[in-house]
């Protein structure tokens, strides 16, 4: 029972962690090497794509998506998609996809003369499902060593855990005051029933014993 309980708890928190890791903004320091667009036919990875540009037909089976190709400050490559989130989830309310593509194209540079930029994005890159993080904004920075403090994430996560803690404490108090006494009472009456049953059985077996001898 304890194993099941802990499995459920761990799975739940892994899910919560994955949700925040996917949804909250993260910053990468990159050198934009190219920008392009390609047609995407959404399949089983359609969860990980956003929607058509605001105002376009949302029901098309496929569409062209902007991409930003980059090399990260640590030398690895990263490809971002660049899509509107519109009025949907996650609530970035991004409508300026084409402008962002223009900004990214403007920051294009070769490795011999790198121009560094910070890309704010959410989402995951996964080669096995062909999914890409969605770029939210791009901004030129001086070098590859700038530090960025994720204030928004700090605030959101603090508020979230404060809320969870508040609910947890209240639930504990409610249980101690209202549910535990009732359960104890039920347990006691069960015990009492068990005692009287044992007593009766005792009497019957004693009667049998007397009858046998």
């Amino acid at each position: 029972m304890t194993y099941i309980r802990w499995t459920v708890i761990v799975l739940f928190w892994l899910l919560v962690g994955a949700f925040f890791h996917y949804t909250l903004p993260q910053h990468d320091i990159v050198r934009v090497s190219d920008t392009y667009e390609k047609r995407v036919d959404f399949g089983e990875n359609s969860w990980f794509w956003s929607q058509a540009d605001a105002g376009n037909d949302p029901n098309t089976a496929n569409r062209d998506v902007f991409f930003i190709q980059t090399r990260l400050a640590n030398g690895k490559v990263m490809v971002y998609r660049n899509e509107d989130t519109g009025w949907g989830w996650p609530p970035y309310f991004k409508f300026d996809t084409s402008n962002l593509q223009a900004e990214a194209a403007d920051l294009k540079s070769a490795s011999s003369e790198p121009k560094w930029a910070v890309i704010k994005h959410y989402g995951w890159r996964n080669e096995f499902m062909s999914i890409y993080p969605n770029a939210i904004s791009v901004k030129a920075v001086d070098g590859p060593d700038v530090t960025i403090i994720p204030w928004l994430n700090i605030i959101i996560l603090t508020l979230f855990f404060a809320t969870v803690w508040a609910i947890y404490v209240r639930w504990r108090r409610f249980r101690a005051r209202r549910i535990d006494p009732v359960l104890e009472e039920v347990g006691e009456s069960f015990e009492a029933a068990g005692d009287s049953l044992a007593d009766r059985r005792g009497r019957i077996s004693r009667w049998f014993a007397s009858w046998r001898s």
Partner: protein
Amino acid sequence: MFALARLSLIGFVVLTIIYFSLSLYSRAVRRGKLEQEWDEEGMTGDKDAFIREGLEDYDGSLRRKLILGVYIVPVTLVILIIYLTNFY
């Protein structure tokens, strides 16, 4: 525009539920405070009238109007996010 309409509708329904729950809760808290005040100060006379008057004062108060922030804060937040994401 359909997406915006959907967001507005769902948002309005959810916020309205929060608004009414909060209003009822806040009024109940105020009633409890008035009752406590009556008992502690050992006042005499019509307790119900005292509480009714206190609640009528509360109905006209700024504190009650602040609950409208339930609508105002999220809408402001959305406008702020739209500005920061697209035009900043």
